[in-house]
């Protein structure tokens, strides 16, 4: 891992720790302020890596899974930072920062030689498609983490010392889920549609029931189902469970295509491990 990314990783871990400290010791404002500042630095450094890599290669560094995962870490960081500024809620922000760090650590598995860009990827849709998707993935990852916190809190009653504070905590977590999902769905939709436009230009079909396409659709359907469930029912545990299923589908779309028997039938295998 390069120095810049090591620095980013250190910032994300440090921010996660400070945020965790703030979750436990609510009175100490310095923890929150420094956690946010360190996260901001991490995000800027992470963005710098993406920009310099883009600049030096001459094309978006998202043709390999490695670059995509670094972008994912950035998106998780950005969404987490902006939500943290809007809603101060315990544990969720800390987990998000640590998740961004985790994605960076995981990305090292896919570190390898860069390949030149194949003709199919030389498309004006390439960068907007990938960027939309990873903004959505970052936001929905945060929504998934918050859903996990909500489920744990609801099912085991963790993190609710007093009834009043417990209620406020749960409301805060729900607000995180709602806001991150509200960022996630539009960009997920945009990514899917740009992918369709791109496939139409490159492969003659905006939709061809390719396994990767189908899994992108499954993810989208589940997130859309979550929005409709959120509107029609008041059962936070059910919402959180559905969001977790949707996020699981999302990560399967990103990483799991190699496990499918139909994977060899797929044309979208550029970034597969």
């Amino acid at each position, binding site marked *: 891992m390069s120095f810049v990314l090591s620095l980013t990783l250190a910032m994300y871990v440090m921010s996660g720790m400070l945020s965790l400290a703030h979750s436990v010791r609510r009175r100490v404002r310095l923890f929150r302020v420094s956690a946010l500042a360190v996260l901001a630095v991490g995000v800027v450094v992470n963005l710098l890596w993406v920009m310099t890599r883009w600049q030096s290669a001459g094309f978006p560094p998202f043709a390999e899974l490695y670059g995509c995962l670094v972008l994912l870490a950035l998106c998780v960081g950005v969404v987490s930072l902006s939500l943290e500024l809007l809603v101060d809620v315990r544990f969720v922000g800390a987990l998000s920062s640590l998740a961004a760090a985790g994605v960076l650590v995981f990305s090292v598995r896919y570190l390898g030689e860069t390949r030149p860009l194949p003709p199919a990827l030389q498309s004006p849709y390439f960068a907007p498609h990938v960027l939309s998707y990873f903004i959505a993935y970052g936001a929905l990852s945060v929504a998934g983490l918050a859903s996990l916190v909500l489920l744990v809190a609801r099912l085991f009653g963790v993190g609710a010392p007093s009834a009043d504070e417990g209620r406020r905590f749960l409301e805060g977590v729900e607000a995180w889920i709602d806001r991150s999902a509200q960022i996630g769905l539009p960009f997920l*939709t945009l990514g899917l549609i740009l992918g369709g436009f791109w496939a139409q230009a490159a492969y003659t079909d905006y939709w061809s029931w390719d396994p990767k396409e189908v899994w992108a659709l499954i993810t989208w359907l589940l997130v859309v189902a979550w929005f409709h469930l959120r509107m029609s029912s008041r059962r936070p545990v059910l919402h959180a469970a559905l969001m977790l299923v949707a996020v699981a589908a999302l990560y399967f779309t990103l990483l799991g295509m190699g496990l499918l028997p139909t994977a*060899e039938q797929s044309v979208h295998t550029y970034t597969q491990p």
Partner: protein
Amino acid sequence: MPRSNSLLRSLVELAGSIRLGVVLLVALAASSVLGTVILQSTLPGGDALSLTDRYGETTCRLFEALHLTDVFHAWWYVALMGLVALNVLCATIARFSVRLEKLGFLAAHLGVLLVLVAGAIYVRFGDKGLIVLREGETADKYFSRRDRFYHDLGFSVTLKRFRIAHYPGQMVFVGPQEGTVSVRPRAGREVSLPWADARVRFERVVEDARYLVEVLPGRPGEDAGAAHMKIETADGTAEVWRFAGEDGPAESLVTSDGRLAVLFDDERTRGGTDRVPAEPRLYLINRSTREAASVPARVDETFKLPGVDPPASGRIVAILDDADNTTLGPGLRLEIRSEGSTGLRHVFAKHPGFNPERFTALPVRSPQVRFVYYRPRVVLHLVRTPDAACVLRSHVDGAWETQTLSPNTPVEAGPVKVTLLEVLDAARVEERYEPAAEPTGLDAALLSVSADGERYDFWMATAGDGKAVKVSERLTIGYVASMHVRDYQSEVTLTDVDGASLERSVHVNRPAWHRGWQIFQEGYFPAAAGSGSQLAVSRDPGLLAAYVGLVMIAAGVFYACFIKPVIVKRKQRP
């Protein structure tokens, strides 16, 4: 709605309820999962043989009964989509209102309906297919992906030029153990290889090179003789060298239009003039065992695939020779049987390496067997008799004719005019490379290698199977073409029935439009398979509706998630 319609209203509300929507969305997602965990017959590699191979006879029958090998076109999947559409439609009607905060809801839901309608329009009225062309060829039909027959395009496509560009290749120096060095050749660059006691200097480097071959007199008694001929056909003029006894598999005789075979025999060194088949034949060549078989290309001829285990046999089902002037040219439709399963396969005379089944749902197996449809219309067989006279045996319209050739005097053989230019008793080939006017994807370098006190100068190129040169016991050099294609494109002329024509350039990601058709650069054949451009055509009258629908969905969702909350908040403010 008026009160009298209250029953209808409650029905619409029920059918358009959000909860039903959630259930349908989750059900659609779950059914879609099935279509990715079970091999799909509509995707490449999902033919009947592969399916029975994987799941066994019984499971396969069960899957087929439940339409699980083509989930996305199964009646129950389409019905589920229909229910989603009904739900969306009823929801839109039940909650219809033109308030500002409802705009996103309206756009997204109407967009979904529009996309589904657009899909149905494509299924009913659209089609997609393939056109395969070599430079200079014209097609006015396409090979439909849907029914795998030729259909009229309504205009003709002529491939003026096909260009392919690769990223530059790498020169690889391999030693015994010490190491492998890989460099990108650059003129003047020197590479020192102490472990091989060698130095290499790149004298010339030509990226996008043109291969020039010169035939020079060789060593008598060791090298085979060769004949140089000029052949004029209606399509153009070509000068060819043919080496004596150059035989090889039948595919090497298939010339660019699949109709002309040219051979040379020197009877003073090698006899046998019966090796020239004049009838169309189907050759089956096992690539691994080198076993070969052939049958006349006639309907209902049966054959066995050589050296295949489990055994497989086949039958020629149809001859596609009416496709002579169309996309893929003449072809055979074969039926292959193995272990109780049956599948179709196509083989085309001009494009031995092309296999349309990759793009459709038809079964194909035994990848180790190469199918060649050898279909000469004219066979030119030049024979040098023991008394050094040159005789041309030509096979035209089912009859052999023999004429004597003298140098530089053209003779006619049916539609072809042949001129003997030169005959060498012994010939060797010298190759060299020059920069081409346009990208060729071929890189070449002239090396000067000093190893073990000796000096060698030679050309290497990235063409072919990457021949390696063994300079010494401690040094082998390879020139590896980049497998990475930078770009490929077809320059085509589109001619309407009324004769009006226009020029278009078709790139990957940049299709051309003409008369409701989109023309795509889909693929190409490597030179070894007889280089050609593979274009895809698509007619989708629902495309505009689909695009509008998709944009409406995206705009609607963005509106609902980013703008609507602001509007709602403002309204709530006192």
